[in-house]
């Protein structure tokens, strides 16, 4: 067992390059919300949330895993599933896939597996924006389906943390069809029944928002995340006017009735565990 986790840890990128790219120096990070310089160790300790303005910066899938999974319980699934270039988009795309794999320590835009979360066994999937913008192609779709099917088989909850601009354009219609197969897999999980909980993080839009992410039994979102179907620019071009600030945010969709709760990162794990704890009634009690 120890060996497994050593190898897992080895796959994690050593430096936090994402935060590093936004940093003014190695030790300081500039908040993308208010511009304040934050001492990196503090920034990481606070789960990448700004102390001053509470801006929630994006997490890598590995960081999110540390936030949600009980220490030492994660077993990764489908770590060797990788994207190919089914439409022949070209070498440039293949190179980008390769460098994203290197950079993120992920096989594609979703990290998945089983773990316990607040003591509850769950099937967990976490999208990572650093891998092709979290876009959903065949591999992400397949891994989402396997999380949902795996949860259904084991009769445990599925938790999916979304972070995606939408479809993987380079896979053309194959990527659109991932919407269909993930939605179908959610319905199979519903029939078990096993709980399906979605955590929308920044951003959750287009093909991911309009498929499995919208179908959670409970849908939580992080504060200030961009959520929606159409891109801001496309809407502005269509209606020929500028959109108000806060349009398509978590708070906007909470107000319009499409989210259950907006949950600050510091309370996320406890909230998820509390909800799942109440939905995971043993079968013999449920009748």
């Amino acid at each position, binding site marked *: 067992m120890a060996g497994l986790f050593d190898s897992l840890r080895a796959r994690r990128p050593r430096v936090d390059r994402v935060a590093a790219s936004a940093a003014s120096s190695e030790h300081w990070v500039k908040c993308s919300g208010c511009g304040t310089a934050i001492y990196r160790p503090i920034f990481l300790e606070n789960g990448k949330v700004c102390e001053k303005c509470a801006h929630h910066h994006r997490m890598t899938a590995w960081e999110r895993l540390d936030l949600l999974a009980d220490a030492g319980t994660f077993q990764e699934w489908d770590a060797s*599933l990788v994207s190919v270039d089914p439409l022949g988009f070209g070498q440039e795309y293949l190179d980008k896939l390769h460098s994203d794999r290197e950079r993120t320590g992920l096989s594609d835009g979703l990290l998945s597996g089983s773990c316990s979360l607040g003591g509850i066994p769950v099937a967990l999937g976490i999208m990572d924006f650093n891998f092709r913008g979290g876009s959903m192609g*065949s591999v992400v779709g397949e891994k989402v389906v396997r999380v949902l099917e795996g949860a259904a088989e084991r009769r445990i909850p599925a938790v999916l943390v979304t972070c995606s601009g939408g479809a993987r354009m380079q896979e053309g219609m194959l990527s659109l069809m991932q919407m269909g197969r993930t939605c179908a897999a959610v319905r199979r999980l519903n029939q078990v029944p096993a709980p399906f909980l979605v955590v929308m993080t920044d951003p959750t839009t287009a093909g991911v*928002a*309009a498929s499995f992410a919208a179908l959670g039994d409970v849908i939580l979102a992080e504060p200030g995340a961009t959520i929606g179907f159409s891109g801001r620019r496309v809407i502005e071009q269509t209606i020929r006017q500028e959109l108000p600030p806060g349009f398509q945010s978590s708070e906007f969709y909470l107000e319009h009735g499409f989210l259950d709760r907006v949950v600050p990162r510091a309370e996320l794990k406890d909230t998820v565990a509390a909800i799942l704890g109440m939905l995971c009634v043993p079968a013999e009690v449920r009748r």
Partner: protein
Amino acid sequence: MILEVEKPLLELERKIRELQEVDRSAGVDLSAEIRLLERKARQLKESIFQNLSAWDRVQLARHVDRPGTLDYVAHLFTDFVELHGDRFYADDPAVVAGLARFHGQPCVVLGHQKGRGTRENLARNFGMPNPEGFRKAGRLMRLAARFGLPIFTFVDTPGAYPGIEAEERGQFEAIASNIALMSELPVPILTVVIGEGGSGGALGIALADRVLILENSVYSVISPEGCATILWRDAARAEQAATALGLTSETLKRLGLVDEVLAEPLGGAHRDFEGTFRTVQDALRHHLETLQDMEGHALLDARYAKYRRMAVLGEAR
């Protein structure tokens, strides 16, 4: 609307009509010349329509004169009773839906509806549904399932409408709910992509036991213009994007994402409505017969298995 690719053909056809006019009115016998030109026109038509590029197909799929959902409803179905509204907020004219009979069999039929001409297009919002359109479709599909009726859907949309109100009323939820619903209704669902299959707005009524696509229809994850803007920051390279996106009927069939490609009459569906209706009718009839023999459970298992396969995966190492 005249497409670039059709121009030489239309020019030749105009010449033939002129000669026929002279032949008739002036009493000059031009029948030999006319026959010659007609043969030439036939050859030209063949050479044009057997070598269409992906971009030509996008233009044909968007052709204003291409038969739309209501044309198919009028010619393939009888007793159509249009039903309106999503019972929540509004009636969306970009989606038409109702009860009808297909060869005597009661069914639910629905589809995106574009308009012909500016006024009708504005009324129909260019066939781009708001959430209410998807919800109306969902409501009637549930009705169909409750009464064991097959469902026919016709796809012809640039996409779901990108508007402020559409987002406020949960465009993403409306689409996702319909897709999920279509995966669990135990009645036959048959979809025909008759024109433009625009991304999630198309899929929102298009998860089906059989997805058929007309030869010159296109079905794409993003518009070629949108793709070109994102990839190369240049909408003018849409032609190149159309090729790269693999949005033609042949590519979709090769990838196993549609079940059958329906051949269009030479010259395209917009030049021969009757021929197109016959093809679509025969195909729907054939597939409905097969599906009606299946039990609800078998139907759902087969549907799930079909979508379960739609991925191209690689293994590392």
